[in-house]
């Protein structure tokens, strides 16, 4: 019983992390119509930058949360630069844009390998959250519960931003119909930069938040990108609710698969995606057919 409970908590935690990662992926996909193949790289850069800040290698030390926020801002700036300098040159050529993000993801992986070496870097759990919560016979790591809380807070904030602000309304308009959005005076290309930076920043933040659970290692990007892909195919593009539900589902499948059938964990992970593609190509909550 305790085993199942712990597995469930781990699944929800992982789902929360995946939500932080894939919300941006889904928004970028919905707005720009391209899968950003550097999204896993953004996750990894965020984690690496955060650990560097945390270790005090920059000459000063910051606490965990500040490190996560600074890393997120830095990754957001990187994302904005990439959108402005590379993707903007190829506006309208989606295939070329995808190939460019693929090329950049290889470059980022190699630069990280050069900069941070090949050994995994473990990230210390922030002090105050290193303890456990005891519920009956079960013991839950406090940090994992905190990650769930963070994911829920971000989900609410993102929802409020999309549904209740002017910017959110413009993004929704851009997702629904970019041409009409342009006609009514929304600068859609400017939205591209904003959403790209926002998505990259969220991914970078998720990387650092995930650090104490996953640690940081070369290849983390290639581990996370397919997960984000599955979440978005499951949930549908450009839908916040879709990426939330998709993340939780993938979190469960991934953790239960790892625990029960480790050899086929990957296969089981992609199975629901195949089912969705066959039965409901637009995703569970997406408006547009993928």
């Amino acid at each position, binding site marked *: 019983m305790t085993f199942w409970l712990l597995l469930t908590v781990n699944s929800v935690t992982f789902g929360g992390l995946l939500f932080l990662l894939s919300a941006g992926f889904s928004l970028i996909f919905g707005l720009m119509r391209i899968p950003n193949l550097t999204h896993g790289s953004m996750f990894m850069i965020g984690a690496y930058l955060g650990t560097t800040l945390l270790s005090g290698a920059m000459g000063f030390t910051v606490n965990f949360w500040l490190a996560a926020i600074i890393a997120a801002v830095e990754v957001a700036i990187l994302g904005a630069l990439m959108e402005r300098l590379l993707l903007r040159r190829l506006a309208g050529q989606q295939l070329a844009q995808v190939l460019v993000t693929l090329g950049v993801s290889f470059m980022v992986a190699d630069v990280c390998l050069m900069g941070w070496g090949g050994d995994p870097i473990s990230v210390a759990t922030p002090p105050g959250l290193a303890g456990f919560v005891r519920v009956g016979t079960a013991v839950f790591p406090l940090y994992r519960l905190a990650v769930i809380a963070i994911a829920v807070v971000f989900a609410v904030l993102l929802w409020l931003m999309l549904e209740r602000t002017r910017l959110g309304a413009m993004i929704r308009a851009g997702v629904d119909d970019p041409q009409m959005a342009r006609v009514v005076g929304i600068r859609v290309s400017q939205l591209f930069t904003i959403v790209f930076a926002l998505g990259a920043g969220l991914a970078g933040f998720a990387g650092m938040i995930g650090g104490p659970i996953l640690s940081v290692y070369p290849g983390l990007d290639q581990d996370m990108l397919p997960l984000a892909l599955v979440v978005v195919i499951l949930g549908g593009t450009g839908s916040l609710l879709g990426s939330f539900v998709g993340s939780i589902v993938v979190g469960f499948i991934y953790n239960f698969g790892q625990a029960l059938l480790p050899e086929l964990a990957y296969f089981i992970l*992609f199975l629901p995606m195949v089912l969705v593609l066959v039965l409901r190509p637009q995703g569970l909550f997406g408006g547009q057919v993928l």
Partner: protein
Amino acid sequence: MTSQATARRVAIAVGILALIAVPYAIGEVYYVNIASQVLLYAIFALGLNVLVGYAGLVSLGHAGLFGVSAYVVAYLLAAGYGHTLAIIAALAAGLVVTAGFAALALRAIGISFIMITLALGEIIWGLAYRWISLTNGDNGISVAARPAPFGLSLASPRGFYDATLVVFLIALAAAAIFVRSPLGAALCGTRDQPRRMNALGYHVWMIRFWAFMFSGLLTSIAGILFVYYNEFISPQALALTASAEGLLMVISGGAGTLLGPVVGAALVVIVKNVVSAYVTRWNFMLGAIFVAIVVFIPEGLVPGAVRLTRSAWRSAWRSAGRAKSAASIAGPKP
């Protein structure tokens, strides 16, 4: 026979003779092996080009197809079966998995097609990597010996080169016949105007499906050559990087041209081997070349070179013509 056809035949004969002469010309075993690699990756690129260039469907999962046949060969040989059975089973498995890929991925086109093939490729990679009892995980499977078809040993680099060359020429001829066939023409039609093709009564899905199968066949053949060349297979050969390398060969050489992928394969294999002799940052180079080609010469090296030489010729011709007309104006002065 027109002079153009004669010229083409002569060019083909010269090309084949040059390829046969390659090992004699370079001699050194290391370079003969690189030449074999170029040819086997050229077959892979030819297969991928059928989809990318002629069907307009960009696949990022082809390394998975490549790996299936390679793994089947390695697994059956390790289990004690003969080469003939292993190769036939590998081709069959490759085609079955290709059919599965096609059935799922062809539900979409464009960007979604890329995402689905990427995910499917990752599944195959994940199986190779994690299903340790079947695939030996990260340690891979070794192949004890290369086959000796018709009593000709492939153990030496030169012998293997010759065998690879024969397979390559057959694959190239098959690709040429496919492209010029009615099916190939229809495929280009579905790439450019799928709705019109549909209205004309063509079964767009079925045309794409057969193109995918042909692509998978060439890819499986390349996978079999790959496992015999290395006498080893590990999940590395199935990773997304490998799919991206194949795509780079196709688009760097020129997607939708017959010889572009061959040139691209030569470029990528040679750069990879030369660069890795000096710097260890091959992945960075791969990414940088990718970005540079997509941004600056999106049509690829072969059409790009043709365009540049043509415009150079044209401007040279024009300036010559201008000089001539200037002379003719200046000429009839009394």
